[in-house]
């Protein structure tokens, strides 16, 4: 973003702006990710792997700030509930293949 040096009189430049945020918020964000991915059927190593990857900035920031142990605790809490079940998706049996209609008729 900062291709140019900040213009101090530009109110849209987010320079030195303080927003409310602390460990509690980060903890809530990490818990949200843990819950969501546990519900999607991810395993413990997969969810922890998500937090450890720097490319996923939000999750990685939480991992950096809170530490592996705190994140693992959150993941275990989520898996204790959502990891109990598995979601089985079954596609309906298709009828005979419908021929693809490549062109619309001009009529």
């Amino acid at each position, binding site marked *: *973003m*900062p*291709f140019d040096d900040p213009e101090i009189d530009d*109110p*849209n430049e*987010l320079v030195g702006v303080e*927003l*409310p*945020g*602390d460990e509690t*918020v*980060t903890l*809530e*964000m990490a*818990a*949200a*990710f843990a*819950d*969501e*991915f546990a*519900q*999607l059927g991810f395993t413990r190593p997969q969810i922890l792997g*998500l937090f450890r990857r*720097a*490319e*996923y*900035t*939000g*999750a*990685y*920031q939480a991992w950096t700030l809170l530490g592996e142990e705190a994140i693992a605790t959150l993941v275990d*809490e*989520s898996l*204790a*509930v959502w990891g*109990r*079940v*598995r*979601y*089985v*998706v*079954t*596609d*309906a049996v298709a009828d005979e*293949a*419908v021929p*693809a*209609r*490549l062109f*619309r008729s001009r009529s």
Partner: protein
Amino acid sequence: MSTVKNWQLGRDMNYPYDARFPKQQFAFVFNINRCIACQSCTMACKSTWTFNKGQEHMWWANVETKPYGGYPKWWDAKILEKLEDANPGGQVWGGKPADGRDKPYGTFEGQTIFEAAQRTLTPDSARVLGYLPTDEEWNAPNIYEDNPIGKKGVRNKIDETGEQLPVHNTWFFYLARICNHCSYPACLAACPRKAIYKRAEDGIVLLDQAECRGYRKCVEACPYKKSMYRGNTRTSEKCIACYPRVEGTDPESGGEPMETRCMSACIGQIRMQGLVKLAEDGTWAEDRQNPLYFMVHVAKVALPLYPQFGTQPNGYYIPPRWVARPYLRQMFGPGVDRAIENYVSPSRELLAVLQLFRRSNRIIYKYEIKEGPKIYEGSLHGKKVELYNDTVIAFGKSGREIFRTTVEEPIHVRPNIHANSI
């Protein structure tokens, strides 16, 4: 100006044209709690529709980091500021979120982009309050928006070790966006050539390339900045909602309406898109078993993006539960607290509907739940959780089943050689 009903604002408002509503409306729900900004949606759209010369800066679908980023840069902050300038201190909501479908978020007492234009713009022909982003604001979406600073002196280049740059030491979230195919499109209202139209069959907003002369009035007017100018053709372009897929005329669809490319590519399973039935007054007609209707009007977990702009957008978001509430109320309106409360403590039905996301690329018109026994009761983060062995079944346009998701307790069969071991 005509007077039209905007149910998201809980009141009538002014709009340059009379209200006309399609039979059904293209709509979608994005669950922000799940988005990790993998950009699969962005690339699916890019590789399908905007890979040509002159479209390099175009991202019909994009994911941006809020509150720091935006595509174009500061799009929402700028239009919010313009509205505030037009109506200082008056951009507020009155009343309280209600259960009904008429005023679900209370009543917006401020000015929409159409109403503010009447008061502040000249000449009289100026219909929508907006602005034209600069070239720099369109350029380089996402670059460094997760980071407060880049390397000194390095410009227009992705940092090879970008992941080591400092990150914002506070909350943020990822906002996935496409055209909202609004019920009262600002792009359509602003076009002097009437090149933009809303389809009667599905409410998709399209821009007729043969009629467009590239005045960029739509680019200026769209508060979400989802209409974009193409220099080499001297016309504007916008998201077309992958309409051949939605129509079911895409060769892959086999005649069954399909979700758009960006929806289908979502690996985080945050997206669901469909078509909702509209009543004569433009509100959503009662369609209890439509999953979108359920999330917006029954569970009330999905909210429109910046409803105060007044375009009645058809994109809805399940807000991120960790983000400061005042920020979310500005972005999604007063329904935020209720939406997060309902999402954090989901009902049995909501849990089932959330299992419909991204199990198929066909549009779901209806769902049914076959209830099973309770298999777990406990608590998570201080909230009560109950799990049921339910099955949720999705049906397509023709009423035929598309798929079913079943919650199962895994059964571990002990192998014969350990049959008697503990």
